[in-house]
């Protein structure tokens, strides 16, 4: 992504960051029902797979050769993204968290995430495209501690009373998936 962030007023920037801090706090304090209320009902939540692509000789020396997008199998392509979910899927994940027989969450994980590098990339009427980075520490009894790192490529819908997440693409940084699950709410 070579595009520059667009100009924002300090108030707008602060409001966006406050939104993401609030969201992070909800998720780390396991208030998943409240988190669900931050989504629009037509939300699309995806996580591309990352593959090791062949270096194309004709692209030698060009920026394209190193492009991150080439490594991603996302929801629009014909590959197989790791996740491509709707509100119903996310609702299922949230409901699951409140059941005692969700054994991979029982006892629940202790998580802490840092969200930063918040950049407003585009503004279309009531829809804003916003990038953010995150680092998420995850510890759960009976499991190794792991760190998730990635970028979120969001479309926020600007509604009365704040923002709603209408689209989120989570680009995880991994070479091998050595995490207990990628089914968390990132």
């Amino acid at each position, binding site marked *: 992504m070579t595009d520059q962030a667009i100009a924002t007023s300090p108030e707008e920037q602060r409001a966006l960051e406050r939104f993401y801090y609030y969201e992070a706090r909800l998720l780390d304090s396991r208030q998943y029902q409240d988190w669900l209320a931050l989504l629009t009902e037509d939300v699309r939540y995806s996580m591309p797979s990352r593959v090791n692509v062949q270096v194309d000789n004709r692209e030698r020396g060009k920026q394209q050769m190193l492009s991150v997008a080439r490594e991603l199998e996302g929801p629009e392509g014909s590959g197989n993204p790791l996740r491509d979910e709707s509100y119903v899927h996310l609702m299922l*994940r949230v409901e699951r968290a409140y059941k005692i027989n969700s054994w*991979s969450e029982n006892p629940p994980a202790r998580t802490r995430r840092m969200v930063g590098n918040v950049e407003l990339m585009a503004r279309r009427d009531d829809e804003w495209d916003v990038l953010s980075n995150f680092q998420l520490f995850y510890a759960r009894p009976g499991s190794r501690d792991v760190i998730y790192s990635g970028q979120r490529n969001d479309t926020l819908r600007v509604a009365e009373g704040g923002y709603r997440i209408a689209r989120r693409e989570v680009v995880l940084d991994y070479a091998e998936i050595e995490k207990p699950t990628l089914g968390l709410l990132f």
Partner: protein
Amino acid sequence: MQPTISELVNEDASLISRRCWSDEGVYALEKRGIFGKSWLFLGHESQVPNAGDFVQAYMCETPVILSRGEDGALYANVNSCTHRGLPVCRADHGNTRRFICPYHNWSYAVDGSLVTIPQESEVANRPDKSKLGLKRVPRVESWRGMVFGSFDEEIISLESYLGDMRYYLDAFFLRFPEGIEFVGAPHRWVLDANWKLPVENQLGDVNHGAFLHSAIIPREAQDIIEELGHSVVTAPGHGATFRLMPQDAPWQDVAWGMEAMGAILGGNEVQEYLREVQAHAAERVGELRARFKGLTFGVYPNLSFLWSNTSFKVSHPRGPGKVEYWSWAVVPADAPESIKKILRTNYSSFFGPAGLLEQEDSEVWTQQYIGSNIDFADDRPYYYGLGLGEEKPHPQFPGLVSVTANEFYARHFFLRWRDELMAAEAGL
């Protein structure tokens, strides 16, 4: 002291030692006795349609390149340079004319033969390049587009190896006029577990579904399995489970087994597609198999097929306590693009590294490995005796058949495992 294999699995395989899951010596025997001698799944022909196409695969821990040569034939070669052993291919998949080793740039054709040694013009005695190609997997065969390789030159043909499993796999494959195709790259992830537990889970353990997964799977699903479920072993280590739907069942209860969530979330378009496929099922696979609503299948030693969420999986060992699990979404080749996308999501939302159901499976496989390593419990082998001796031949389908709670699928797996490891132990 190293236990002998006959001490680890009893005569009828109703008692399985914890060491089978955790012992380094046992694992070394598995490599030789099983992975060196079986047909191992490499990939699907839809992944390598054109000359020069390749995908990476594994045969146990050995990295292999499956490719389509200039001559149109399929090849499998060990991904390791003959000069100093580096992998010559780093991409997961692609199309190329040559694999070029990074170290001294020896180059290999996609069929694995050595083409150039850049340094050879400087020396007087030129090596015989025809003997220095990549190590070729000696046997490669495919059936219904499924490509397998074996390191055992003498192994029986793939078709005989699959035997009556073909009858059950065809109940799925033949429903679709153009067969199936694999979608994109496999999801691959590493778990601290032994390779055999994911295999056993998919070979026939459908009776954990409504228990382990009760946060998602309703009790009614289990009632239906208890009422209509069949578990089949066609040969030790090969198995299939499915529901045989009643003759008068409405089409949407049968479809081809795509489970409720996927069909519901897919909306009318999916419903319409399922109805269409089911309408032609009887003419394509016969009246009996048209009523099969599949659950899980397994092909010895480590290939699994999850019919309900249309996924093939391979459990690649990485030592006794680590597994690299690969899974692919598969779709009917002639389905419209929009249906393919819904089907891949029906897989990835519930299975794969982010799957709602697989989260629980990954958790228990990891915990089982911990249990298999604890001390002072060697006199408590795992109990595999449920339904012992209750399986019988069936008047209508091939193989031994029983209720799904009968653990005979696992006992038969371990009887074969025991024989093959005892042979390896004896140096055969």
